[in-house]
């Protein structure tokens, strides 16, 4: 008797749940005429930068330059604009989760900064839409700034041939080394290894120094995408093949095994610190240790030079950066063995600013986007420092003053590779991170590669996986 009433109550409830369940997913509405002539507008900029923390310079630029100048310019046009800045200071993966939830629930800022590699996922989910749809095709192509942005950089903001946003710039990866430690270990200050073996040999020399970790090559899942970009992918292109080629992802191929073996040689051979890779804040700690002269060789992007060990504004300041930090191109496994038979390799990426399709004022958000990407704004963002921005006109002026960044622009960008702009990429990256975590915690490269193959097939389907 009692059971039947319980059932009688449950069934309608389930039905209601099922009906509402039809609401899962996204229903895009395309209307770019929204509020185009509004006199009172509110726009919010969302970025993973915060005063006194991550990318503090970027946060200061938005609050102290962009917002007052843009408000002023709008006032001159008779529009009362309120621009807010939503600061974040989180790890990239946490930030991504946050903006994904924002987009998903129909909220979020009007202009959002995100890693170009996330575009595909958001676009496929209908959470981002091409600029042509959000703002209007003619308005977008009319912007004079496009001509200043090289195609390779513009591609960071594209998905399936459509523009979703404006890139903020690009970067390149090198091997940084501590010249003071190199001198102590009897290594040259103009070090340029030509193969993996030479990097490991330098590591052996550094191992003699007490309290020094010779090599830091990012590994494990805690580091997130940093493991892919500052670890697996540069090593992989050094074996001659990128992660995605001829329509397939690399499974447990010879190349992937060679990369995992490199990890084994570093982390089982006492050349790296396996624990650091597994700590929740391992990457931040690797920065602190490098700045503290405790890491000999570190694979990082130019971000390290301009935002981490930068003597005044960095998160792990190094007062003697200019004399103590050296850099070298990342060698292929063997000379000539890299992708396109290159001797040296690198990987690049970059952040993109997009307009949230949920924006109440898409037209004005586009105005703000153009404003933020003007040559004047871009120069102001640098504030005298050097960075590889999206704009060639700005780069020509600012890079010459900085030896490291002009090195990246001159020697690294011509040989670099970009990640494939596919929605599946983050899953592949997660599987690669797991494979390195397995090797660092003691599994053999073959075991790790087999597990990686399985995970990859599960994530992207057997038809899209090569080798194994």
């Amino acid at each position, binding site marked *: 008797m009692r059971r039947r009433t319980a059932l009688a109550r449950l069934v309608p409830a389930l039905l209601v749940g099922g009906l509402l369940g039809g609401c899962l997913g996204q229903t895009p509405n395309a209307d770019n005429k929204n509020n185009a002539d509004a006199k009172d507008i509110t726009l919010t900029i969302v970025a993973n930068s915060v005063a006194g923390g991550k990318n503090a310079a970027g946060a200061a630029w938005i609050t102290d330059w962009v917002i007052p100048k843009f408000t002023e310019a709008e006032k001159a046009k008779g529009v009362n604009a309120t621009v807010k800045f939503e600061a974040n200071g989180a790890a990239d993966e946490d930030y991504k989760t946050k903006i994904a939830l924002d987009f*998903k629930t129909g909220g979020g800022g009007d202009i959002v900064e995100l890693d170009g590699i996330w575009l595909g996922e958001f676009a496929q989910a209908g959470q981002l839409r091409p600029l042509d749809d959000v703002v209007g095709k003619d308005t977008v192509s009319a912007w004079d700034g496009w001509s200043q942005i090289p195609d390779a950089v513009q591609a960071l903001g594209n998905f399936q041939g459509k523009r979703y946003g404006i890139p903020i710039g690009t970067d390149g990866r090198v091997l940084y080394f501590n010249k003071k430690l190199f001198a102590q270990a009897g290594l040259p200050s103009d070090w340029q290894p030509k193969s993996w073996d030479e990097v490991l040999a330098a590591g052996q020399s550094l191992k003699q120094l007490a309290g020094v970790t010779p090599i830091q090559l990012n590994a494990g899942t805690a580091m997130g995408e940093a493991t892919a970009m500052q670890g697996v992918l540069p090593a992989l292109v050094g074996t001659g093949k990128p992660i995605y080629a001829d329509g397939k992802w690399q499974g447990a191929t010879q190349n992937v095994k060679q990369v995992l073996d490199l990890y084994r040689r570093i982390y089982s051979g006492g050349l790296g610190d396996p624990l650091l890779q597994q700590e929740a804040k391992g990457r931040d700690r690797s920065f602190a240790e490098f700045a503290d002269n405790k890491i000999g060789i570190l694979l990082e992007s130019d971000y390290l030079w301009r935002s981490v060990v930068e003597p005044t504004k960095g998160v792990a300041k190094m007062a003697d950066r200019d004399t103590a930090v050296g850099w070298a191109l990342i060698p292929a496994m063997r000379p000539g063995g890299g992708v396109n038979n290159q001797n040296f390799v690198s990987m690049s990426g970059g952040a993109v600013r997009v307009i949230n399709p949920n924006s109440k004022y898409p037209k004005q958000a586009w105005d703000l986007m153009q404003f933020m990407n003007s040559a004047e704004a871009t120069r102001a963002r640098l504030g005298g420092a050097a960075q590889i921005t999206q704009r060639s006109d700005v780069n020509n002026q600012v890079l010459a003053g900085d030896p490291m960044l002009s090195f990246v622009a001159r020697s690294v960008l011509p040989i670099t590779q970009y990640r494939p702009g596919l929605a599946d990429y983050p899953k592949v990256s997660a599987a690669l991170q797991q494979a390195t975590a397995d090797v660092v915690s003691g599994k053999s490269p073959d075991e790790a590669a087999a597990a990686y193959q399985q995970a990859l097939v599960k994530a992207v389907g057997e038809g899209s996986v090569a080798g194994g």
Partner: protein
Amino acid sequence: MPAAEPEVVLEREVPAPQRNRRAGSRAAATDAAGLGRARAVGFVAPALVLIGVFLVFPALWTIYIGVTDYQLTGAAAAAPKVVGLANFLSALNDGLFHNAVWLTVLFVLGSAVIGQNLLGFALAWLLRGVRPWLRRTVESMVLLSWILPSTVVAYLWFAVLDRNGGTLNALLGTPGTAWLVTYPMASLIVFNTWRGTAFSMLLYTSALAAVPPSQLETARLVGASGWQTVRDVVFPHIRGHVLTNTLLISLWTANDFTPFLLTAGGPNHASETLPVFIYRQALEGGQLGYASAVSLLLLLGNLLVALVYLRLLRRRG
């Protein structure tokens, strides 16, 4: 219907004046406040609506998402498909899920069933006889660890367990030991025992007050040792409390998310209990459908544990 029959039999034996009173009390048994059905419904409706909106609906929603391939981003976020029981089946074949179940069992047994229970009882037992000021001091210290916000507590434990310059390493003279990386589960179990003991201590303190002093006195006179007294005199009195306490802290611990603040499930999934596993699958991996299915499995696990305890309690009665 059958319930009414003995009542009739009884009434036959009751004298007339008392019969009226009985009739009155029967009405009171169904409508003690004299509100009438409509007003009674009106009174409970807000509570039922809240429960419906915040408990029943999310639970049903979870079941629904659990049978889809819904994701946070990507194509499956725009147009999720119903995949039936596929999520549940792949959970049962997922090594990481097995790992999470095992770690949850370890976590509950180690920190709740054994850790908090024993430490809570020991504190309650030892503090009976001590001076009030000492008792109050110890109790407030234990309570403090219970009432502080999780983020604050996590920060403090970071400072204690940190690899470079952590308090524990300084005390033990073991510089460079990364406790949360090298011994993640052991650290979490000790942490959660410390964190949750207050509840068991309070519950046992009041339970012990219910043990008749005369029996304790008798035990003392016949020369029973401390352990014999606990086992033969105290325990039979507080058995119900032990079960209730164990049930509550087991469920709380199984669903506790604080481990995430300390280890984020790492290193390499070595401390990924089920709630952390669900969070990471749902938000870091974007697999909302799969994570919902696993949440439902966790819910079923909780119900199972609760049923076992209730069965034990009933057997006692």
